[in-house]
């Protein structure tokens, strides 16, 4: 990343909303990274005598059906949910950029084929794609990641392609060709670096959606394998407890909501700071 983009991220923190949401995300990241060491209670050890305890001391968010501390599991869940979503989206972003850049640069039949497939998957409900994929690969975090990655691949491919097509028309590309540049030089030095910022911002926003998709897969019982906590898995096992121990589902749900909102707000701040609203248009 060049100085321009770096300063953009910095600038995103300068608005109150950007600071607030960015700060929240940073804290969440720290919690996720250090979760194994900082959670007040062990997240897997069962304490059946203490099950479904209401929020209070020492269990600030109460305990679940196995007497496990909800707060600790929410903290640890950040690790699972964020890493699943971020890894998936990251992977999706890389593949999507490669596909989109190739489609946009080479055009022709290749582009048509890629875009037809991509549009079809884009128009298909995420949850169906994810459920099919999880059924094919089998459950577990890796297949959840794969499913999220595939579900969002279309978005990145479309965005990158749109960018490349738009950039290709810019005079500076023609000027560079006219200097005798090879396609490799043009792609790697001009097209991709210019296309990357919007893709990263959209990717960041997609992490929020990825968290929701992970949660929904969790609701259908897929995703993280017990006893590993993830927000989705917690909510899904919590639906049964909705009336007995509502905190088991409410807290992870709230954290998901707040996190996704924070990601959205920070994404907006970033878009404004990087001044790429124009380039996100139509995608």
């Amino acid at each position, binding site marked *: 990343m060049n100085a321009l983009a770096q300063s953009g991220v910095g600038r995103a923190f300068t608005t109150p909303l950007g600071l607030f949401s960015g700060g929240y995300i940073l804290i969440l990241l720290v919690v996720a990274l250090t979760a194994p060491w900082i959670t007040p209670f062990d997240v897997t050890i069962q304490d059946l005598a203490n099950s479904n305890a209401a929020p209070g001391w020492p269990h600030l968010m109460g305990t679940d059906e*196995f007497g496990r501390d909800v707060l600790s599991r929410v903290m640890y869940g950040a690790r699972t949910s964020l890493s699943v979503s971020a890894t998936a989206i990251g992977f999706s972003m890389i593949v999507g950029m490669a596909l989109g850049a190739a489609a946009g640069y080479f055009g022709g039949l290749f582009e048509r084929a890629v875009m037809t497939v991509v549009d079809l998957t884009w128009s298909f409900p995420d949850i169906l794609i994810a459920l099919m994929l999880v*059924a094919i690969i089998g*459950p577990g975090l890796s297949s959840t990641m794969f499913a999220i990655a595939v579900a969002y691949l279309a978005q990145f491919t479309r965005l990158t392609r749109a960018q490349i097509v738009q950039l290709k028309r810019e005079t500076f590309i023609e000027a560079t060709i006219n200097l005798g540049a090879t396609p490799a030089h043009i792609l790697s030095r001009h097209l991709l670096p210019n296309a990357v910022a919007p893709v990263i911002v959209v990717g960041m926003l997609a992490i929020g959606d990825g968290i929701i998709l992970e949660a929904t897969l969790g609701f*259908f*019982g*897929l995703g993280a394998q*017990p*006893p590993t906590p993830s927000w989705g898995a917690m909510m899904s096992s919590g*639906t049964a407890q909705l*009336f007995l121990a509502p905190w088991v589902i409410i807290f992870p749900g709230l954290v998901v909501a707040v996190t996704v909102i924070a990601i959205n707000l920070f994404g907006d701040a970033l878009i404004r700071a990087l001044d790429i609203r124009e380039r996100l248009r139509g995608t």
Partner: protein
Amino acid sequence: QEATFALPAGELGATSYNPVTSSNLNSATSLIYDRLIEQDADQSFHPHLATSWQESPDGMTWEFKLHPGVKFHDGEPFNAETIAAWIPTFAGTENAFMVEAIDKVVVVDPLTIKFVMKRPEPNMLYNLASSFMGVPSPKSYKALGKDYGVTTAVGTGPFKLESFSIGLETVLVRNDDYAWDSDLSVNQGAAKIAKITFREIPDQSTAFLELKTGGVDVLLGVPTDFLSIIKSEKAATIITMPGTGINYMPINTSVAPFTDIKVRQATALAINQKAILDSVYAGVGQEAHNFLISSLPESQVKPGLDVSFDLAKANALLDEAGWKRADDGVRAKDGQPLKVKLFTQNDTEFKRLTQVVQAQLKDIGMDAEITVLDSSTIRDEYKKNNHQLAVRGYDWNNADILDWFFSGARLGYPNISMWKDAKSDELNKTAMTNSKTSAERIANFRTYHEYLLSQFLFVPIYQPATNIAFNPKTVSVPEKVRGPRFRSQTIMDMQVLQ
């Protein structure tokens, strides 16, 4: 005089009320159709459309006397011809196996029918009592063809099918002419409820909320997680009746470390049935100590063969088998940690149960890693022999379930234990095909069961109860639930309160 029932999770998604071809029937079927024979909660058989029956000593013929004056909803009479027309319709369907032993059906007189058998079938009465053996009107059945069971379903039962919206609800109205109740219900005339709606609500929380807000009057089948909530709810009463299944943990005997019977036994002894009953199931239901439900006579095995929790012995056995505890508490042998795969089904209850099992296995130094799989995938994994332990359950009130899960001819699935053993197959054959009468069959199955128990092929865990919740302000339910499940016999005695 109307009542709304919510179908239990296991009965959702029926696409037809055609008992002959269907593979999925729900409780409403038992109200539309009558069966020749009914089974009670104690697994005893009672007359219904067949008033009496006689099995020849060699088991090669069965004779049934039929109830006189029975009429189908379409006005057709029910008689021996009905049966003669009905049995052959099973040919070529997925349900054909139920009547497969019948060679031919002979009409003796209008109210007497005789089955001539290909081979003895000690399970005949059990099969005839199943919901797939509800008798449809031969005339309508023939006339409607593929649509039978979807637009119309015609039986002799206490209720007529009024409308069926697939996946949503089934509306039944009372058959006012009904006068041929079985002796399992007190009521011997038409039903007391005029109209019943069976609703399909996939999400259990939603179903519970429907009961709470009056959207449904009866929940057939309440998951155990909801018991405590419903108990605290004024608007609901719970009836608990013995279930018809067992939750257990099959052990794959074909892969290490479970090729060693000592490890299998240790694993079996590690599971604390009592603790599970109390923590996971809030004390509702029963502990399971062998493979069959306790109402079956075959479950009464020799003392000492039942599997019960014994942590000390389990640990001793593992020590003996060479698995030594390491610092982290996990045992190891030859540098190989005692780490096993524990499969479970994608279902909240099983996931809960499995997490407790996982914790208990940890106490004997076994590190079990849970994998949650959907029901089709899990079968595929079993077939590929990718499993070691699994937590699962079955629902079947007949001892032939032993054949299903342990027959050497069904390795992989359903024989998840991958159990193939000459002696076992010999005992299986005796029980399945060489028993001529019911009594003989019971004895043979008990022997088979005892042998299987001695080999530690599985760990019995829990016998679920069936829980029915209802709104005591809107409906009344008889004290005692008759029949193996909460079905027509009990519903006949229900009343709507105003």
